[in-house]
């Protein structure tokens, strides 16, 4: 039996973020590290800095629209009371994080038991949402510096320039270090956690990685099954 974990919309969102992130990184980092040979090579390969910037801006605008659509959907769901709270950080997440650290240090043999999303996934989701807001916001400042300086202090532009590039670097490093480990290299999922592409997860993984959700679903299934029996 396989459990549904992601809707087709969520799978699309992940795919779009992944593709746009790659485009933004390839067209963005050669600008940040302009004085390295590989940056010159990449820019040459992309057809010059102006072409690279065109793609960077196009992908950036698409990324921004994706972010806005995502947030608007959440607001809409919140207004209608249909929003899922499974991504909201709770006190349990902090306890889980401490518990996991204690387990990793060998101080306890009891592993934290997770619900639908564990604290690492919540951290990554909220990190992405916050980081995206920063890069999209600063990106807009850089795209419209004259407009920005009409209403805001001019110093905001070099600050946005720095924040945009450093936030992008941090996001890239988090993806390389954290996301690649959790979605590919971790022994739990090696070589490839396919759930975000197929939308489903096996019962074995469900039992192992999301025991609280698994048990709740089982209880509910039992309850709905009983009266029918």
């Amino acid at each position: 039996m396989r459990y549904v974990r992601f809707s087709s919309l969520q799978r699309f969102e992940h795919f779009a973020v992944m593709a746009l992130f790659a485009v933004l990184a390839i067209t963005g980092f050669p600008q940040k590290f302009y004085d390295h040979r590989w940056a010159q090579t990449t820019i040459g390969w992309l057809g010059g800095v102006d072409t690279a910037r065109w793609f960077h801006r196009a992908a950036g605008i698409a990324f921004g629209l994706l972010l806005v659509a995502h947030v608007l959907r959440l607001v809409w769901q919140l207004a209608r009371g249909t929003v899922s709270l499974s991504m909201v950080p709770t006190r349990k997440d902090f306890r889980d994080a401490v518990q996991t650290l204690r387990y990793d240090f060998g101080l306890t043999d009891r592993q934290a038991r997770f619900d639908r999303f564990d604290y690492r996934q919540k951290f990554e989701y909220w990190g992405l949402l916050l980081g995206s807001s920063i890069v999209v916001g600063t990106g807009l400042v850089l795209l419209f510096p004259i407009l920005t300086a009409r209403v805001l202090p001019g110093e905001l532009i070099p600050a946005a320039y720095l924040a945009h590039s450093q936030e992008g670097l941090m996001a890239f490093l988090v993806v390389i270090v954290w996301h690649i480990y959790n979605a590919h290299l971790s022994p739990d999922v090696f070589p490839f956690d396919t759930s975000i592409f197929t939308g489903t997860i096996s019962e074995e993984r469900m039992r192992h990685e999301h025991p609280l959700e698994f048990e709740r679903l089982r209880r509910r299934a039992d309850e709905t099954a009983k009266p029918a029996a």
Partner: protein
Amino acid sequence: MAVRLLRISKAGLRVTLHSFVAVLGTMWLIGQPGAQPAAAAAVDDDTCLTCHSDSSLSLKTRDGAGVSLHVPEGALAASVHARIRCAECHMTTADVPHPERSFASRRDLTLALDTQCRRCHFANYTKTLDSGHQQAVSRGDRTAPVCVDCHGAHDIRKPSTPRAVISQTCAKCHEGIATTYARSVHGQALTAGNADVPACTDCHHAHDVAGPKQTAWELRTPEMCGSCHANQTLMKKYGLSTNVLSTYLSDFHGKTASLRRNQHTSVTGPVVARCTDCHGVHDIQKASDPQSPVIKANMLKTCRRCHPDAAGNFPAAWLSHYEPSLHKAQFVYAVKLGYAVLIPFMIGGLGLQILLHFWRLMANR
């Protein structure tokens, strides 16, 4: 070779020990691949001066003008070529009497004789082939300068002693620019005998002269200015900051210039602001001069040359070559500091967690 030596002896060469050594040297030189055979040991100067010391000696060009062929005695005495014989340059007239030649005009004669220099100065001659002057020549512009127009003919001196001579040489044709330059901070210092400031050729080069029509040269502007303005010992003398180059390069304009350079694809879009677009070119003034385009009162006007819609706060977006610090651009400094702490903390923390997790998994097995 033998024929030539024979002909020389016919011309009445006095074989002294000195010229014998010269002949041997010439033979050795000719034997070297790529070496330029100097026309040494040709007709001696006395032979030339037999006729050319006559102040009435002249040549009529086809346009009717007379060109004096008089070479006053000692014409070369103060020149760098003082010890070079007439015939070493004037190879085509080594035979006496000279074969008859006809020239359309005085300029025609100059252009014909110009090929003589490259026998010795071949490297500089090849450089001129890349020059803006050469482009004018190939457009058919007969006024475009050749060697003697800048260096002179018999009275050739070191072209850069004193350095102010350089600007005077260029001023012969580029008078307007030379006047503007003379009023600039660099030009004033050069006239006053300061050897630190750039003369025309320091930016434009001497033989491979480049100008604003060569985009590749334009994009090298930061390097050109930086060759002095990023030199700490030199700038210390004048109390100037050497941060100017690095702060420019790490900003949007500088990055664009760097990334457009060395691209084999064509340079698309307008060339971005380089040093000279804000500071001026030949009219560069001190940044503190009230006339300077980069002084605060004139900044907006300067920005508007490229950003016509710029208003109010826009010039403040440029930190005027200052590195953000506790004293300058504190907000930018705070952002810089924040990320300098956050990035290692974040990546280090996550990396450590991964290692810990992996370690525990290994210990479990």
